[in-house]
Every structure is written in C-alpha cells, then in structure tokens.
C-alpha cells in the first residue's frame, strides 16, 4: 500500500466490566497523509469465525475532508466511550465476540483509494479480568448437531 501512515491507538485498560468506560487515545504521527478523505474512530463489537461477520458500533466519530472537519482533527485525540452491558467478550467454538476500538484512515493517491486500519481489542466481562467467556472443555459425547441447507 502506498505510503501507509503510521497509526497509533492505545487504551488505558483492556479488561473492562459492563457499564465501564473504555478510554484511550490515538495519534497519527506527522498527521494524516496527503489526499486523506477521512479519519474515523469507532468502538464496536464484532464476531469472527466461519460465519459471516456481525458488527455493531456503539460509538463512531469521523473527520472528513469533504465537510471540512478533517482540518480540525485533534492529533493526538483522547476518547472515552461508555460501554453497554452486553454482549460480553466470548471465545466459543463457532461464535467469537470481540470488542475493539478501531481507527480507520482513508486517502486517495493517483486516483486510487487506500485505507489503513488499526484495531485495539479489549475484553468486556462481568469479572473484568480480561478473559473472555468460554464454553466448558468439550466432552466426548458433545457433537455437532448437523448442517442444514439455508
């Protein structure tokens, strides 16, 4: 990717409880690259695994060139986002739920669009111990229930 900017995104704490606030900051050293169209920050949960990804943003902020807000981008930028009670972080066998703070920068050079993404994962559980919920260790008789055409 052409001249990908360095993105730094850090969180104060990565082990959180429902209702806590995720806090941190991001910085783009040297500022956004020439031709930047947008700098976007979001806090979201997403799923991973063999299924299609589900994603939900609980906070989204954007600084764009087309509305002039990019010029006012605080760099570095500190954020605090209150978290909901659910869903908890989960590391299952088929379903995995991750909480992330995400920084996305998009820019255009020579007529081509580029994008740089930085994710910083944190864990949301009632214990606040940084360990996602997991199903118990599989037993021998546990089984996959079957596949059905959709």
């Amino acid at each position: 990717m052409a001249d990908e900017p360095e993105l730094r995104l850090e969180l104060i704490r990565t082990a959180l409880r429902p209702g806590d606030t995720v806090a941190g900051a991001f910085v783009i050293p040297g500022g956004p690259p020439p031709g930047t169209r947008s700098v976007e920050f979001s806090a979201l949960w997403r799923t991973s695994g063999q299924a299609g990804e589900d994603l939900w943003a609980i906070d989204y902020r954007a600084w764009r060139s087309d509305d002039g807000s990019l010029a006012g981008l605080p760099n570095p930028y500190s954020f605090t986002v209150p978290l909901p009670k659910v869903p908890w972080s989960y590391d299952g066998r088929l379903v995995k739920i991750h909480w992330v703070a995400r920084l996305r920068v998009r820019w255009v050079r020579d007529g081509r669009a580029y994008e740089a993404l930085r994710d910083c994962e944190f864990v949301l559980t009632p214990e606040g111990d940084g360990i996602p919920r997991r199903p118990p260790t599989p037993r021998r008789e546990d089984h996959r229930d079957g596949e059905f055409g959709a």
Partner: protein
Amino acid sequence: MNGPVWLAVVALASLAVVGFLLLMGKLLKFLRGVRDRRMIRPAPESYLRAAVDGAGEGPDDPERLPDGSDGSVVPLVETRPGKVLAHALKRDELSPGCQLGFILGMAAFWNVIVGSFLFQLWQQWNAAAAAHWLAALILAPFVVIGLRLILAAVAALVRWIIDRSAGRVAVEISVHPLRPGVTAQVYVAQTGPAPLVGLIVELVCIEEVTDTAGMREALVRETVASYPIGDPATNDGPALPFSATVTVPTGVMHSFTAPNNAISWAIRVRGRVHGQIPYCEDFSLTMAPE
C-alpha cells in the same frame, strides 16, 4: 415435439440459466471487489452507528431484554404460563407434524413432475426400441433430488410417529429468564401413549452460525455446554413427571443473537419411546446477563 426431446431442451436451458447466474454472481463479486479497491465506500461502522442513532435499522429482533440496549442482542424467548411452575417453555423448532406436512408436500410436488417426465421417457424408450441416453442423463440429477426428498419425508414421518408416541412433553421452569448463578425448579411432564424411559434432562448451550464460506449458506449448530438436571437413579432414568433443581453455573455466556451468529440456551429432554426409539427435544429459554 416429443416429451423427452423437449424435456432435454428445457433441462439444458435450465442448467444453462443456473450456470449463467452463478457465473454472473461470481463476476459481480469480482467487479465489486475491483470497485471497492478504487472507490471510497462508507465504513461499516458508520452506518451501524447511524442505526444506533435511529437513522437506520439495526438487528430486527423486536423482543430484547431491557438491559440489552445500545445495539445489544439478547433475545427474550417467549414463554407461556405453566401449570405447575411459573413458565412453560416452547419447543425450539417446528413441530414434527408441520415438518412432515412441509416435506411431504415438497416431495410430492417434485416427484409428480419428475415422474411424469420419467414415464414419458419410459414410453418413448419402449416405443422406439432405442435408448434415449441424453434425456436419461439430464433427468438423473432431478431423480436423485426426488429420492433425497423421499428419504427426508420418511425421516420426517418416523420423527412424527415418535413424537405422537411420546405425546405432549411439557417443560416448565420457576424462573425466567435464567441468569448465571441462579437456582430454578424444573418440571417435566408427558402425556402420551408411550412413556419416555431413560430420561435425561439437561441445560444446554448451543452455538449457531450461518456458514458463508462455500457456494451456499449453511446453518451449523453445535452444543457447546451441557449440564445435567437431576440425577438418573436407574438405567431407565427418573420417572415422569420429573421435578428437580438446577443451578446455572457462574461464568456461562448469556444468550446472544445477531444476523449470522447466535448463542442459545435450552432445556433438552432425551429418552426412549417404545423401549428403543430415541427421543430428543429442545425447549428454548433465555440466559440473561448477570
């Protein structure tokens, strides 16, 4: 034009259309990828946030727990008032009677049509005393699908007979929704001609995903946790009606649903009817956050 010949034309045309559509789908996906590399599209987070703000649509489950706001997805499973305990749970899926009716209808519709073509082919074959291999080859996959539908109908019929034998199995629970660490009473009763023996009652957690890796979407389910309720005293298990206490372990995951991923909880009743025929049914419930 004689039946099998025009049938061959129709079948070939159908295959060509299906192939064309598949190719077009792949081509569109490729072109979309090219466009995505050249154009700036809105980040998925942006319109999802808009949905939170009320400008769009979020996960469309109308029933959620009050603390499942902010785009969270904890589905509240509907229950009925129970006769013994507060909540009667519902089956996890369509009743075997509905399933049988649906699959029988499908099998009949498909096989009557394919059968009429087969009959014409057979007549042509006898009259002309010559083999119509091309027509037979084209018909073969339709026949295979028809046979699979018949097998599915037989399986549904067996399931329906087992269900009729077991009669109505009722599962009731004293607390709903359940939560990690909560203790609840569970009651299982049966009204049917063949008593359930070898009864096993469990609290189970099921992960369910829509697998999109292949050419078609497939639903994949896996039971990831199982907690026995009660203690089977004999090889035949406890007698019905069955009553026991269950304490939900702390540290379990709450119910969760999203368009492609779900974590669901149920009380699973297993046993045998008529001595050997296995019976298994899940009764859905909600596991709420702590």
